[in-house]
């Protein structure tokens, strides 16, 4: 078995990027995720794998550097935290519109505005409903451990290239700052320029060779008919993601009468709540969406007939709960518990809130 190393979730992202064959990282410092670029700069991957690492002048520039790299068919990524990701939303919309694969990591802190540097999950809407303009979606993965921070880097790139779409790792300050053991996966080499031409020359700007048509990467289509077709292509991709790439984890849901839905750090905390409830004889389970888009709507549908209530637990004023309610569609009560301002509730606080809600 590979060696397990104690590291922060943020450090795991950096090591995973180097080891999964990422071509470039472009970023700007912001708490609580600065360890990602710091680790990359310390590791100097340009000396080993040839990966480019560059500190940009702003998040606006970072995301547009990603755009340039992605145009070339390269595996490129950036990372930031909430206010920085707001600045990136213009670029995300362009990336989605131009059908470009890339990875954006958002280690979420509390908002709105400059907010707090403590953990938050208030960027759920921005991530899954589209923070930028226009009808677009991204693949959104929500890790809840340092190991998943590591593993979801490679998975994000796989899904991003499968669908030619931006992918986001929506983490939070807890998962980013917490140290746990991480198993490093085997090294994957970066693709060579020749391999990139072979795989992506139908769209990537790899240089117009004689006989090949000119490749233009753009999200612009002034002709409304063509632009509607472009939008329909995007929507068809999103429906395909919903069919094929929903990921979730269930804990003690088989006989559950109540289910908590939580992601990221809150899923870890609610797992302890489930243990507490089971000790008291309450049949509580946990559904942890791993992909926030595509959302596990069908799984919620499947669970509803056996359940009395569901409860969404979030570090927000109630965002994912809207998707849970859409899936439940009024059949059973869907309760909500959340904390704001960077306060992370403990398992017993969640348990108290849960008991209060079901006894209402």
């Amino acid at each position: 078995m590979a060696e397990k190393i104690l590291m922060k979730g943020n450090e795991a992202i950096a090591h995973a990027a180097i080891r999964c064959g990422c071509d470039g990282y472009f970023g700007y410092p912001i708490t609580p995720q600065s360890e990602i670029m710091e680790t990359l700069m310390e590791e100097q991957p340009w000396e080993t794998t040839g990966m480019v690492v560059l500190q940009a002048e702003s998040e606006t520039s970072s995301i547009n550097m990603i755009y340039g790299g992605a145009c070339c068919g390269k595996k490129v990524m950036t990372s930031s935290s909430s206010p920085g990701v707001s600045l990136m939303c213009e670029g995300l919309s362009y990336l989605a519109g131009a059908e470009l694969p890339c990875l954006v990591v958002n280690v979420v802190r509390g908002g709105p505005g400059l907010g707090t540097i403590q953990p938050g999950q208030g960027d759920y809407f921005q991530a899954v409903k589209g923070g930028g303009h226009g009808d677009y979606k991204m693949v959104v993965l929500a890790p809840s451990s340092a190991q998943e921070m590591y593993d979801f880097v490679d998975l994000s790139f796989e899904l991003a290239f499968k669908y030619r779409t931006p992918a986001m790792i929506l983490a939070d300050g807890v998962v980013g700052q917490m140290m746990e053991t991480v198993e490093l996966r085997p090294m994957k080499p970066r693709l060579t320029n020749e391999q990139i031409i072979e795989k992506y020359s139908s769209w990537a700007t790899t240089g117009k060779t004689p006989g090949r048509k000119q490749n233009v990467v753009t999200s612009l289509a002034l002709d409304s008919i063509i632009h509607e077709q472009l939008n329909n292509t995007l929507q068809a991709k999103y429906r395909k993601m919903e069919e094929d790439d929903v990921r979730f984890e269930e804990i003690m849901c088989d006989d559950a009468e109540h289910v908590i839905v939580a992601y990221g750090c809150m899923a870890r905390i609610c797992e302890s709540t489930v243990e507490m409830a089971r000790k008291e004889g309450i049949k509580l389970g946990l559904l942890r969406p791993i992909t926030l888009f595509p959302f596990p709507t069908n799984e919620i549908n499947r669970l509803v007939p056996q359940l009395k209530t569901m409860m969404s637990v979030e570090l927000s004023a109630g965002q994912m709960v809207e998707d849970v309610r859409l899936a439940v569609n009024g059949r059973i009560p869907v309760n909500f518990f959340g904390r704001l301002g960077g306060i992370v509730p403990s398992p017993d606080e969640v348990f108290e809130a849960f008991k209060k809600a079901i006894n209402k």
Partner: protein
Amino acid sequence: MDVNDIIKPENMVYSKTPVLTSTTMHYCPGCSHGTVHKLIAEVIDEMGIQEKTIGVSPVGCAVFAYNYVDIDWQQAAHGRAPAVATATKRLHPEKYVFTYQGDGDLASIGTAEIMHACNRGENIVVIFINNAIYGMTGGQMAPTTLLGMKTATTPYGRTKELHGSPLRITELLAQLEGTCYVTRQSVHNAASARKTKRAIRKAFENSALGKGTSFVEVVSTCNSGWKLSPVKANEWMVENMFPKYPVGDIKDL
């Protein structure tokens, strides 16, 4: 007698470079963009680097530059072309990467991006079209609009008190250690177009030598925005733009 009877090798005195597509340009008659596109295409052709050149087009009239120059293109968000080009060049050091930007794109919304790309000395070429107005959006004030000049958003003329002075960003960029070649040219007559072509060629050659950022400003006309005929626009440019934006090399290392 049709056109094919006239175009015969023995009659040929000029032919379009194959790097320029046959698409009819959407630019207004008298606009400088068409000439600059042609010069870039000729340089790419003459240097034999069509396969190795990637262009980054802006937001503005030249957003469609990719319809006319037959290379791979990346269409950037407004002002962000230098960031896009930075990553492209870093990930493809063997390629020739250039941005093509107008004055609103480069000197207003994209000021941070161009400053930092030039300061890092990215080995890219920047072609900067300065016609002192926003063309695509309908003739609004640009950062380079002259004092007193009337635009859709300065209907009584630009004033220093309200809008500040015209921004000579090219002189600013020449101050940065990352730029190796900073020049200001024009394309209003054959002689100036020939000089501009030489400047563009030098800029592309610099990027292969890894000398830093090469920046070519082309003082240009926007006769539609200026509400002048093409000939009058050229005269107006020489008379009013050149005193503020004098033509010539500013830096050549």
